[in-house]
């Protein structure tokens, strides 16, 4: 038996196991049920070493996640040629991974996409032991519920951060402190928010502080009454909007050309605009913020798993974590990145909360998929299909 043949056999065995897992997850049990459940208890067989790169790696990523600064050295070191496709929303990421077949190897999924991908069998388990920097990750991101199910890691955490309120410092005075600015008719025609149904959670978060009698505790678990209140708020906001932005570069254009002066944003836009000398600032308003925690996940149909592992290893190193954190304006999962961030740009470790205590992490309401199951024994919550329908109605 040649080495190559053994490896191929190993991968196909693993593909079979993942396939069997997906079979069980989809609930189509049947004849193979008993057999597959045995495999689940043992856990999927994971690669124990990273082989030679296959020469290619195709990524679905958020804009700004595959910058030449760290992609070029990776290509040089591993021989894996990286191609990346930017996605504007978690919905788009899920669809690309589902319909792309083996076209895409990895996706930088946020918490509202990762569970959908796991449940859909679109991604496969990964072995964190092959990522030398994994032990340096903050505890909250070693086995978070959005990428680890029953102790099986479906991907390796990357970075996290809050959704911020972005404003033009010359045109918006006084400086905003609350999300209420985005619902203020004084700024009619100058506001932009993401074209993304998950935005309903931002309205719900604002209502959880301003209308406590609605009893919103988790902005992703809303019953009909709470949901209607959030949707109504967004419908009132609709005439104030200049535009819904779909890619980060859309919002950057809007601010650069003076079409928008206020918006819901990511730190990436603030950094890019500031680099272009546009007078902008961002903040986490007093009501708190929603946020994202991203994971590099490996497609179950990937044809370049070695390059994928090499990439995950690469983006987990303190240096790349620091580079990406500063470029995008987010917080690295790797605690060792803090020192390098300060080397690259003095004060950036503190600015992007890489040294913040765990309580800061807990204060952000991270994106997750809204499900009918509210998590408190009730199942009267609005699921994501209803969020999407409401979003069409809000946009009008």
């Amino acid at each position, binding site marked *: 038996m040649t080495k190559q043949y053994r490896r191929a056999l190993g991968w196909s065995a693993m593909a079979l196991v993942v396939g069997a897992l997906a079979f069980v997850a989809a609930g189509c049990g049947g004849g193979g049920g008993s057999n597959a459940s045995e495999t689940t208890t043992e856990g999927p067989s994971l690669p124990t070493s990273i082989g030679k790169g296959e020469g290619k790696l195709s990524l679905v990523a958020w804009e700004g996640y595959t910058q030449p600064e760290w992609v070029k050295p990776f290509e040089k070191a591993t021989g894996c040629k990286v191609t990346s496709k930017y996605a504007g929303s978690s*919905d788009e990421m899920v*669809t690309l991974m*589902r319909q792309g077949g083996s076209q895409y190897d990895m996706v930088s999924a946020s918490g509202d996409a990762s569970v959908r991908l796991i449940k859909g069998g679109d991604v496969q388990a990964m072995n964190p032991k092959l990522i030398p920097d994994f032990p340096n990750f903050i505890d909250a991101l070693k086995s978070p519920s959005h990428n680890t199910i029953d102790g099986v890691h479906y991907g390796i955490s990357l970075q996290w951060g809050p959704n911020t309120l972005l404003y033009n410092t010359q045109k918006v005075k006084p400086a905003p402190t609350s999300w209420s600015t985005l619902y203020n008719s004084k700024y009619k*025609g100058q506001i932009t928010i993401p074209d993304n149904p998950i935005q309903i959670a931002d309205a719900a978060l604002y209502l959880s502080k301003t209308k406590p009698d609605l009893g919103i505790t988790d902005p992703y678990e809303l019953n009909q009454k709470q949901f209607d209140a959030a949707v109504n708020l967004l419908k009132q906001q609709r005439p104030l909007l200049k*535009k819904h932005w779909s890619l980060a570069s859309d919002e950057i254009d809007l601010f650069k050309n*003076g079409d928008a002066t206020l918006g819901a944003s990511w730190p990436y836009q603030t950094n890019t605009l500031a680099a272009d000398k546009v007078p902008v600032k961002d903040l986490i308003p007093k009501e708190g913020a929603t946020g994202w925690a991203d994971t590099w996940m490996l497609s179950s149909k990937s044809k370049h798993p070695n390059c994928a592992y090499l990439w995950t290893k690469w983006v987990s190193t303190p240096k790349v974590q620091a580079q990406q954190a500063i470029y995008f304006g987010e917080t690295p999962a790797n605690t060792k990145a803090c020192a390098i961030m300060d080397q690259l740009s003095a004060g950036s470790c503190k600015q992007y909360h890489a040294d913040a205590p765990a309580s800061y992490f807990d204060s952000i309401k991270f994106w997750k998929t809204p499900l009918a199951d509210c998590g408190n024994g009730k199942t009267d919550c609005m699921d*994501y*299909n209803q969020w*999407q329908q409401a979003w069409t109605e809000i946009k*009008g």
Partner: protein
Amino acid sequence: MAVRAEQAGRSTRAARRRLSAAFWRRPWLRGLTQLGPPAGIFLAVYIAAIAVLFVSAFWTLDPLSGEIVHDWGFQNFKTLWEEHVYWRIAGRTIGIAAAVTVTDIILAFPFAYFMARLASPRLRTVLFVLVLLPLWSSYLARIYAWRLILSSDGALNWGLGGLGLPHQHIAYTNWAMWIVFSYIWLPFMILPVYAALERIPDSVIEASRDLGARNRTTFRRVILPLALPGVVAGSIFTFSLTLGDYITPILVGNTQFIGNVVYRNVLGLSYDLPFAAAYAMVPLAVMGIYLILARRAGAFEAL
């Protein structure tokens, strides 16, 4: 060996002769072999696609598993009928498509008339190149150019400011979509109108004048009716192209078109292809009605 090769050559020659004889005796066979492949492709690619679209519009999506259920029903159409938002989006799409068509007719007619009947051959060539030139560049590049022109700090406001005029705020509005659509589809109106005007024989116009008709009467009763098929052909282009577009609304608009809802349903979590197919039937139906009306108006007889 040699004998066998000769025999083979003779038999292929004989077969060829039989084939040509068959073609000669049955002319319809000739037509079939010539038209067959393109007609087959047309059927397989175009008609079959529409048939699949039509059939899947009556299917539904199981909300729990996200699988398409192959049960016939009118649920999708019921949703479309009952939810006001879909009426509003369809109305907006059709309204803007109609406005763009009318605008393009008004802009294209004098231009095409000048090109076809007044310009010298050399000027005509220059004008032709000018009309076609934008089509050589990417559609996206042209839309982005309009974004820069119309934006708050863009070229238009800069120019208005220079003239001491007040700033406009048409970026990311329906007005912006109307302007951009009218610009993008204008060549598709000019060319058929030009072709129709060019084909009007001079003798017809001379006859009209000889019979005492003034210029306006000649235009109204001779030129316009003869150019109408060109105008209708152009309007079919501008109307249907606007009706099906979803990129311009994303880039320069602040609202949704039918295409955007379809896109969202195809590229969303729900992956609700049946609903997308049902909504896609709306522009198809509108175009069907439009074509029937155009036929009633006699537009196709003159083609």
